[in-house]
């Protein structure tokens, strides 16, 4: 299997899950801690401002995830503003609530643009003034691994100075639909919003489209966080960073396909 190599380094990861903020909130055993609950939801963030009054919960979670990443890195908003920051957004189904709401006429017809996955990253781009390149992928954990790899490419090719990989997964509003897939996706489904900040690094990222079996981090994320779908690789990155690991090998599968990537993880304060 051929692998693509680009120099990339993970500077910071911010995560919010249905368990709470950061990896410290994750229980040792998600299934046991869920105590039969099918979905662990995230509360709608209480963000101030007229623009946020009509924003969807998913959009607000995206904003919160980026804020959490900035706090983790000790960075101000100005550090990511402008054309130098690429935004790579991934989700398996965060567009679901707005789609279901629009079909069921629960949301107003003018809400239609928010049915697009790009509306979620669009709101985040507006909030933080991100005017650089973007990639928006839909899928499970392999899509996030693809996005991390794409971020590395954008950095290596000089198409950005830094890249944000943002993942939002929500389940509560469409729980009945997700429960139909409970044999494929056993509980608990854990809502997650996560953002990683990547910069150029010395160590090449090693990407594989087939990737072999589940790595230790993938197993650990599923055990501790539960099912977070596309967010799982970022939760894995956060766990690796919290453990002081210099590098992380991320793996993930979805619809019978696997992907993997190895990334350098910074332990020191972010340099952007």
């Amino acid at each position, binding site marked *: 299997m051929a692998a693509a190599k680009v120099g990339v380094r993970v500077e910071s990861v911010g995560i919010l899950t249905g368990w709470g903020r950061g990896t410290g909130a994750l229980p040792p055993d998600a299934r046991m801690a869920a105590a039969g609950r099918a979905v662990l939801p995230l509360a709608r963030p209480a963000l101030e401002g007229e623009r946020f009054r009509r924003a969807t919960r998913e959009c607000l979670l995206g904003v919160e995830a980026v804020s959490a990443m900035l706090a983790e890195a000790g960075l101000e908003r100005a550090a990511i503003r402008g054309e130098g920051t690429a935004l790579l957004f991934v989700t398996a189904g965060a567009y679901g609530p707005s789609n279901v709401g629009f079909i069921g006429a629960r949301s107003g017809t003018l809400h239609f643009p928010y049915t697009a996955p790009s509306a979620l990253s669009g*709101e985040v781009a507006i909030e933080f003034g991100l005017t650089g390149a973007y990639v928006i992928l839909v899928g499970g954990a392999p899509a996030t691994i693809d996005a991390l790899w794409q971020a590395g490419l954008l950095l290596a090719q000089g198409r950005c100075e830094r890249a944000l990989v943002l993942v939002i997964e929500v389940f509560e509003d469409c729980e009945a639909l997700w429960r139909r897939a409970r044999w494929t996706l056993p509980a608990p489904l854990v809502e997650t919003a996560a953002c990683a900040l990547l910069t150029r690094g010395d160590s090449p990222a090693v990407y594989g489209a087939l990737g072999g079996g589940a790595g230790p981090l993938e197993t650990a994320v599923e055990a501790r966080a539960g099912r977070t779908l596309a967010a799982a690789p970022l939760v894995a990155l956060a766990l690796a960073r919290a453990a002081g690991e210099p590098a992380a090998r991320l793996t993930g599968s979805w619809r019978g396909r696997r992907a993997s990537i190895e990334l350098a993880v910074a332990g020191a304060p972010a340099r952007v």
Partner: protein
Amino acid sequence: MVTPLGPDLDSFWSGLLGGGGDALTAIERFRTDDLRVGRGGEIKKIPAVASGIRSRAVALLVAAAADLRSRARLGAAPERIAVVVGTALGGVEELEHALAEDRTPRRAFDALYDAPAHALAEWLGARGPALTVSAACASGATALGVGADLLREGAADLVVAGGYDVLCRFVLRGFDALRSLTRERVRPFDRRRSGLLLGEAAGLVLLARERDVRGPRLGRLLGHGSASDASHVAAPDPEGRGLAAAIRAALSAADVGGGDIDFVSAHGTGTPLNDRIETAVLRRALGPRAEAIPVNSIKGALGHTMGAAAALEAIMCWLAAREGLIPPTAGLEEPDPLCDLDYVPGTCRAARPRLMLSTSLGFGGCNAALVLEAA
């Protein structure tokens, strides 16, 4: 490909050249009586190869893939073949069924936006990366760019890339509510333009590294670029700053200047705002030669095919270069003084462009550009 103009590449091309008419008709597949507008670029007959497929999105992709396979061989190991498709709507029509009459797990899973891409990969026997790009109506352009990246970096040896979308009640109701649809003819860059009409299509190309190409090729993808407006979720930036940045990025990636471009395939939706902004951006990007460079929009002929649009427009560019003909901007009869570039009205024009630019915009402030070269 499969489009409202016909079931394959040949019908697409002949339809675009055919005298400035359009394939926009009354929609028959679902009810529209409660909407302001009930017309669009509807594909009336799915090609036989895909006729038994339940999901219309998958059926369109399979029909397009069958047409592609009749023209090009997938000569690589299955695990080295990637699929990258762009879509604005994915399997959303399946979601409508999942919420209504079909409570099966399969239908729920097919409602996710990435389901059709995986179904296409399965149909093709492709076992490499299977990616779904969803950057609204700019999806197809980004899909081609991501596909090229996979090749360039050695993550795949062949990439089936492009875009698709289905004209369904969900999207028609949405654009109808936004008052974006016209009750008249779609007239990109025309003084009387009053909105867009939607269409459905799937367009795929086979991407390979230059050194691996054995047979004739359609053209080259030299560069792609994207940029966020960070301005509004549903409307383009009033100054077109994101589009300008995307064009700059694509030109830079291709290592060419705006003045080197011979032909532009514009997003050209036929909405008052888009066409005016796009004209201003193109004028700046193309430089002093801007007025001498032919520009067209094919959305007057087949409607706005959303996730498929940029892929169809890239293919149109390559065909224009190969055939020496630029299709006209169907519906353009009375040029708008505010849209003062050479928008190829009336009939097709004899020209053989070498370097071409294609532009796309979408909800969420997505802007994308491709720089293409003749074979």
